[in-house]
């Protein structure tokens, strides 16, 4: 009896401790999402009743497909380029070359500094009067006209990689440093060349960590809002389009915005589930 009471008290206090977190989750996440879902099913304006019109309107436009494709193109190319940058970078940093602490700190800069500031700096740097263009037109004189990088698709992808590669790089670095050197030792003793060790031992072993990090990069890039808002120009991914619905139109089109937000959330969840499944299969 006493132990029963004790275990009940334990369960009760545990629940009490969890309650602030759960309350926060329901109040600040679950309820807002519910409100957004309900709003997306209501007709625009003050009218009541239920309708799928918002979804039909959005998905019926030919531009909807373009926007969704653009969002995926940006997020996926950013993720792939981040992996291609992070793996050689962290392989070098792992060797603890002189000054490696500075480069480690450098990896963290883009995620600590506000995205807006990074975007402003990138626009200045890659602009027609920025240093890369001055170098090409003045020093090398290979081109007459400055290259247009800002507000182009390539430019936006460069900016995305700058902002979001950190997640992949940090996770890859920590995976690499947790790697047992015995595996490489064994491969080397067995006569594998450095390249073979890298290709057949190190890369397969760190792949789960790299993919886990790249999920974070993908999510950040898919949901990116401030970067494309400022640097995107005519390339407006989903998050920006949603914001346009309530910032440009008066009265604000909350219904349309909510429907688009739900489509976006669903796409991200579906893609993440798929990604996780592929990851698990690789690990198995």
């Amino acid at each position, binding site marked *: 009896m006493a132990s029963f009471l004790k275990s009940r008290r334990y369960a009760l206090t*545990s629940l009490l*401790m*969890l*309650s*602030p*977190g*759960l309350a*926060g989750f329901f109040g*600040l*996440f679950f*309820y*807002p*999402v*519910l*409100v*957004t879902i309900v*709003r997306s099913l209501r007709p625009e304006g003050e009218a009541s009743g239920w309708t799928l019109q918002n979804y039909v309107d959005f998905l019926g436009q030919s531009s909807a497909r373009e926007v969704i494709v653009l969002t995926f193109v940006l997020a996926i190319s950013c993720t792939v380029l981040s992996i291609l940058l992070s793996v*050689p*970078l962290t392989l*070098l940093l792992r060797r603890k070359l002189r000054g490696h602490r500075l*480069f*480690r700190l*450098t*990896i*963290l*800069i*883009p*995620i*600590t*500094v*506000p995205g*807006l*500031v*990074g*975007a*402003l*700096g990138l626009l*200045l*740097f890659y602009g027609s*009067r920025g*240093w890369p263009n*001055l170098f090409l037109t*003045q020093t090398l004189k290979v081109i007459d006209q400055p290259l247009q990088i800002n507000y182009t698709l390539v430019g936006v992808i460069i900016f995305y990689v*700058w902002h979001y590669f950190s997640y992949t790089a*940090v*996770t890859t670095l920590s995976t690499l440093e947790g790697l047992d050197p015995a595996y490489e030792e064994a491969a080397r003793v067995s006569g594998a060349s450095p390249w073979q060790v890298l290709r057949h031992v190190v890369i397969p072993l760190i792949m789960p*960590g790299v993919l*886990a990090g790249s*999920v974070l990069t993908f999510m950040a890039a898919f*949901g990116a*809002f*401030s970067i494309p808002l400022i640097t995107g120009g005519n390339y407006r991914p989903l998050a920006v389009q*949603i*914001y346009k619905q*309530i910032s440009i139109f008066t009265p604000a089109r*909350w219904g349309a915005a*909510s429907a688009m*937000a739900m489509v976006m*959330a669903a796409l*991200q969840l579906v893609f993440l589930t798929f990604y996780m499944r592929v990851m698990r299969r690789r690990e198995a």
Partner: protein
Amino acid sequence: MKTLKQYLRALLDAKKLLAYTFLLCFFLWVSMPFVMIALKSIGKNWFGKLWLPPDLTADWYKWAIVVTNIPEVLKNSLVIAALAVTIATLIAIPTGWALGRRKIPGKEAITAIILLPRMIPPIAYALGVAQIFYRLHLIDTHIGVAIAHVAICAPYAILVLSSTFEALDDRVLEAASVCGANNMRTFFHVTLPLVMPGILSSLIFTFTTSYNEFTLTLMTYGPKTMTLPVRTYLAIGEGYWEVTSALSMLLIVPSLFVLFMIQRQVQPEKLVGGFKGV
């Protein structure tokens, strides 16, 4: 034999040279935007094909202070961040303790639920938050914007704190009580010093997250609660890039300071990670 050795050493050096070139390019690629902002914020008459500004001036900072009303905006940012940190920490300490140290059925599921906000694009629930806040008249109040920030900050704080509490060694606590310390003494002299670094890193991290938060602020701010990121966004739209650069320097400095701090105190992978198991 000797020439072969020399040849090999040269090859090794070439490799090292290549490695350093790559690292240097990487460093420049990341840091150049900030150099440009810094130069833009102090440069005068910087037009055309000049590599560096010809004249220096502090005018843009004066402009930034007068035109964009920096003292007020900075005060708003700090008040909102302080409120958000307080609320997020008050939520995260008990929840983190329960998740980190107690036997709870379905712990994995609860952790997944608390991390769910990170799997959905922020704009999706920012819309809902804005609509709820309009109804509750929380738009354009400091506490309202701060509560909106908690939605982003709290999951991070819970994550960091639960892993801190989990790492607390039972044997150390037992040793303290065996040595005759009562609960109070154990708490203040053993538990608290052990978890302090974790709490500190959670505080620092929630603070910068709130100070830099843009999406949720944009959906809930008003003229009375203008924060630095929103002001910077509006200034970029207004097109005075010199003034905007001066404003941006104010956002960079604390961030770089924090970066320096967290590099010393906590492993960075803790801050971005927590997703490996999901």
